[in-house]
C-alpha cells in the first residue's frame, strides 16, 4: 500500500472518533446501493522499488533518440535542452503549485508568466501574449475562433501543406460554430502559397481569417507571407511561427500578422512522446478582450510594490461561462517557465547562432540526399532553415524509414495523413536536424538513404 496516505491504523481511528462514527462506510450512505460497484480489477499495490522496476522494464521496450542518429523534425523537435532548464522546472515551489488564483502567494509563477508573455511579444512583434495554451495545434484552433470574433465570414484559409494533424484539429475547432477550413493550393515547384487563390477567395467576402505557417509544413520559408496582409485587408492574418525561426526571421507583427501562434516544445521541453507541449499565442492590444486563455498583468500591492496578478478574467470561463472566449482552465504554465528559462540561458544571439548552424547542416544533408537517384531533396525550390522535405521516387515513406531505422537512423517522419479515408499523396518525408547532429551522422544518413532507395527499387 502506498505510504502517501498517512498512518492508516492510528490516525484514521482518531478521525472517525472525532466524527463519532465507527467506519468510513457511514460516510458513503448517500451513494445508492444500485449505484455501488464491486471490485474494479486494478490489481494489487506495489512497493516503490517494484514500481520503478516495472516502469523501467516497460521503458526498456522503447528506443530513445540517443540510440539513433536522429533527424526528427517539424513542429516537435528532438533538440537539446541545457540542464539548467530542467533544474529550474524541477523546483517544487513551481511544479507543485496550482493556477495562481491567490496572487500574493504566487508572485514567483506570476512574474515568470509575465516574463514569458513579454518574450513572446518581443519575438512576434505583437502587443499581448497569453500565459500559454495546450500546444501549437490547439493554439491555431483558438486563433481560428478568435478571428471569427473579429471578422464576419464562414471560411478560414490554411495552406494545403499544413501538417495533417493541425488541419484536423482546426477542423474540429471550426465545426462547433459551423465554420469551414479551406486549403490554399501551393506551387508544385516552390511550395509557395497561391496568392491569386487567396485574392479570389477574399474577394468573395466570406473569409474570416487566414493562417500561414513559417516555416511551412514542408520546412520552407515562403516569401509570399509578407504580402498576405495587403491582400487580406481587414481579414485577420494568423502566422503559425516556429519560435527558433523568429531569432533570424522578421517579427510577423511587422508584416501584418494580427495573431502569432506557435509550438514551444523546442525551447527546453523534452519530446516525451508528444506531451506536455506548449501552445503560444499573441495578438494586438486592441483585440485583447477577445483573446483566449489566462493573462498575467502588472499592478501594485497596497504598499506600492510591483506585483502581478491574473487579469482580464471577465473573458474567462469561470466568470463568463458559455460566453467565455475559450474553455481554457488548465494551460501549460510550467512549460512556459521552461520556454523562458531556455531562451534566457541560450540568449537571443545564441538562438540565432543555433538556427544558423541548423540551416548549414540542413544544406549539407539536402545536397547529399539530393544527389541520390530516386530521391528529390529538398523537394521544393525555396529557402529553408533546418527542416526540409524529401520526396521518394519509388516505394513508400514507411518502408524507406524502416530501412534507415535498421541502421539506427531516425530519418524523419512521413507527411501523409495516416487515416485510411484520406488521399495518401506523394511519398514525402520531413527531415530535421539538432545540435548533436554531426557531420558523421549526415554522411551516415546519405549512405543509408542511397542503400535504402536502391533496395526499394529492387523490390519494386
Amino acid at each position, binding site marked *: 500500500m502506498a505510504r502517501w496516505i498517512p498512518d492508516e491504523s492510528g490516525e484514521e481511528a482518531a478521525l472517525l472518533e472525532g466524527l463519532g462514527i465507527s467506519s468510513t462506510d457511514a460516510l458513503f450512505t448517500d451513494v445508492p446501493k444500485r449505484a455501488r460497484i464491486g471490485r474494479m480489477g486494478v490489481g494489487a499495490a506495489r512497493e516503490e522499488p517494484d514500481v520503478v522496476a516495472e516502469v523501467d522494464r516497460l521503458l526498456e521496450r522503447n528506443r530513445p533518440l540517443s540510440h539513433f542518429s536522429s533527424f526528427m523534425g517539424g513542429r516537435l523537435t528532438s533538440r537539446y535542452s541545457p540542464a539548467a532548464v530542467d533544474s529550474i522546472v524541477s523546483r517544487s515551489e513551481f511544479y507543485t503549485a496550482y493556477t495562481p488564483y*491567490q496572487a500574493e502567494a504566487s508572485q514567483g509563477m506570476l512574474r515568470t508568466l509575465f516574463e514569458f508573455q513579454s518574450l513572446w511579444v518581443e519575438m512576434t512583434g505583437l502587443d499581448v501574449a497569453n500565459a500559454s495554451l495546450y500546444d501549437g495545434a490547439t493554439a491555431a484552433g483558438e486563433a481560428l475562433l478568435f478571428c471569427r470574433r473579429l471578422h464576419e465570414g464562414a471560411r478560414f484559409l490554411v495552406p494545403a501543406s499544413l501538417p495533417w494533424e493541425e488541419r484536423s484539429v482546426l477542423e474540429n475547432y471550426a465545426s462547433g460554430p459551423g465554420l469551414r477550413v479551406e486549403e490554399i493550393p501551393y506551387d508544385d515547384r516552390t511550395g509557395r502559397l497561391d496568392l491569386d487563390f487567396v485574392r479570389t477567395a477574399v474577394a468573395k467576402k466570406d473569409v474570416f481569417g487566414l493562417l500561414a505557417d513559417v516555416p511551412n509544413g514542408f520546412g520552407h520559408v515562403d516569401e509570399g507571407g509578407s504580402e498576405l496582409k495587403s491582400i487580406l485587408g481587414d481579414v485577420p492574418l494568423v502566422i503559425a511561427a516556429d519560435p527558433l525561426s523568429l531569432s533570424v526571421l522578421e517579427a510577423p507583427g511587422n508584416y501584418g500578422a494580427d495573431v502569432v501562434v506557435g509550438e514551444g516544445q523546442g525551447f527546453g521541453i523534452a519530446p516525451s512522446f508528444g506531451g506536455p507541449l506548449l501552445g503560444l499565442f499573441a495578438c494586438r492590444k486592441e483585440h485583447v478582450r477577445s483573446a483566449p486563455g489566462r493573462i498575467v498583468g502588472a499592478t501594485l500591492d497596497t504598499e506600492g510594490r510591483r506585483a502581478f496578478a491574473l487579469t482580464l478574467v471577465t473573458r474567462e470561463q469561470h466568470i463568463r461561462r458559455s460566453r467565455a472566449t475559450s474553455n481554457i482552465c488548465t494551460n501549460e504554465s510550467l512549460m512556459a517557465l521552461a520556454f523562458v528559462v531556455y531562451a534566457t540561458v541560450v540568449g537571443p544571439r545564441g538562438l540565432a547562432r543555433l538556427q544558423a548552424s541548423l540551416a548549414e547542416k540542413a544544406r549539407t544533408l539536402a545536397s547529399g540526399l539530393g544527389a541520390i537517384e530516386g530521391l528529390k531533396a529538398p523537394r521544393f525550390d525555396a529557402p529553408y532553415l533546418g527542416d526540409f522535405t524529401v520526396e521518394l521516387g519509388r516505394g513508400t515513406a514507411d518502408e524507406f524509414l524502416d530501412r534507415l531505422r535498421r541502421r539506427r537512423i531516425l530519418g524523419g517522419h512521413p507527411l501523409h495523413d495516416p487515416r485510411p479515408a484520406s488521399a495518401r499523396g506523394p511519398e514525402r518525408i520531413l527531415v530535421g536536424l539538432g545540435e548533436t547532429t554531426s557531420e558523421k551522422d549526415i554522411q551516415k544518413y546519405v549512405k543509408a538513404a542511397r542503400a535504402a532507395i536502391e533496395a526499394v527499387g529492387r523490390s519494386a
Partner: protein
Amino acid sequence: MTFRQARWDEPSVWDLAPPRNAEAPPQISGIPEKLRRKNAVRWPELSELEVVRHYTRLSQMNFGIDTAPYPLGSCTMKYNPKVSELLARRKGAAEVHPYQPEATVQGSLEVFWRLERILSRVTGLPEVSLQPAAGAHGEYAAMLMVRAYFRDLGELAERTEVLLPDTAHGTNPASAAMAGFTTREIPSKEGCVDVEELGRAVSKKTACFMLTNPNTAGLFESEILEIAETVHAAGAMLYYDGANLNAILGVTHPGRMGFDVAHLNLHKTFATPHGGGGPGAGVLAANDKLGPYLPVPRIVKEGRRFRLDYDRPKSIGKIKTAYGNFGLDLRAYAFILSHGEEGLKHISRRAVLNSNYVASRLGKLLPRPFRPLVKHEFVLSGAPLKERGVRTLDLAKRLLDEGVHAPTVYFPSLVDESLMIELPETESKRELDGYIAAFERALADTPENLHAAPRSLSVTRVDEVRAAREPLLSWKDLRAAGEKAETP
C-alpha cells in the same frame, strides 16, 4: 504558525541586464531580405548562474503543495509523489519522439494501453483515449463526439441544447458553447440537481446533460440513477465531469451511474503535478455508443505488439498534436501501480474522512449551507463575516498568513460568500488539526488585521482592479508606460 515567505526585490530579467538589440542576427542564405530580422530579439544576455539565481528566487516566492497544505476546492491538490518525477525523466520516457516508428516506441504505447485499460475499469466505460491535454479539453472533445453522434442519427438539427446544473464548473458551459451548443442551467435544490426541474427541462432539443458527481457543493447526487433515466428517456446523453472523482474510487463509477461519456483529470485524482496552472492530462472514457467517435489514433494491442490505429471512420479526428501528455500519463500510471485496487479505494475513503472531519469542526465556526454529509470537499458561507465588515476574500488572504493556501472562494456561486475546502487523502491528521487551528485564529482576528492581510508574503494585498483597469501585460507595455517591472 510563524511564517514569512521570501521577499526578494528581484527585478525582471530585462532589468538585470538591459538587452542589446541593435545588431542584426546572422544571415541565412536564401532568406529574402524582407523576411530577415533586422534586430536581434530584444531580450537580455545573462550568465547561466544569473538566470538560475533569478528563477530560484522567484520560486521562493511561490506556494506549492510541497510548501504547505493547499485546500483549493475542486482542485484536489494532493501530494505529487517524487517517484513519478524520477520516472518521467528517464531517457526511455522523456527522450522519445512521438513520430518515431512504432517498433521503437513499444514501451510508450504499452504504458498508454495499460493506463487506458485501468482507467476503463475505474470509470466503468469500455473505450478510453488519453489524447486530451487537460480536463476542459476532454469536455470539449466529448461535446464534439456528442455532436457527431447526433449528426449520424440525423438529430443534430434538433438537439442544439446542453443542460447543466447551476453548480457546474465554468468550463462545462464554455466547452459546450465552443462545440456549437446553446446551454441552459438547471436550478439546484438543497445543493443538488432538482430532478423535477430537470424532467421539465429535457426534451428532444437536449443533446446532453453535463454533471459533476459529487458536485461542486461537495454533495453526492444521490438521485443520479433517476437523473440518468430522465436524460436517457429524452434520448439525450449524460456527461460526467471527473473533476471530483477523488471521492468515489471503488465506491461507484460513471458507468454504473449511467453516464455515457466522461472526462477525468489525471492532475487531480491521479496526482500528476499541476505546474502552477498546467500541464494537465485529460482522459476521455466512453460507452459503446460514443466510443467510435473518440479521437484518433487509438492504441490497439495485436498479439504482443502495440499499434496506433487510425482506422476509425466515425472518429472526430485529432484534438491535439501527437497523442496524450505522455509525461503525465506515465506519472499517473506509477501512482496507480503504487496504490493498487485497495489503495485506490483507500484514497476516497480517506479523502472523504478528512473532508467530513474538517467540515464538522469548521461548521461550528461558519454556516454550512447544505446537508452535513459531504464527500471530498465542502462549502462554507462567509456571509456572517459581513456584520464585522469582513468578506470571504479577507479571510482567504488572512489564511495565507498562517502558512496555508487559501480555499477556493466565491464558487459555487449559489452560496453567498462561499469558501470551498478540499484537503485530500495525503494530508495527515496533524495537518488537518493545524489547518483547523489556523482557520480559528484567522477568523478570530480583528477586522483591521483581516483587511490588512496578507502581511507575511512577498507582497501585500495585490490590486487586481488596477491590473484590469490599466492593463500592463508585457515588458513592452511597461516600457511604453515608462514603468519598470520592479517597484516603481
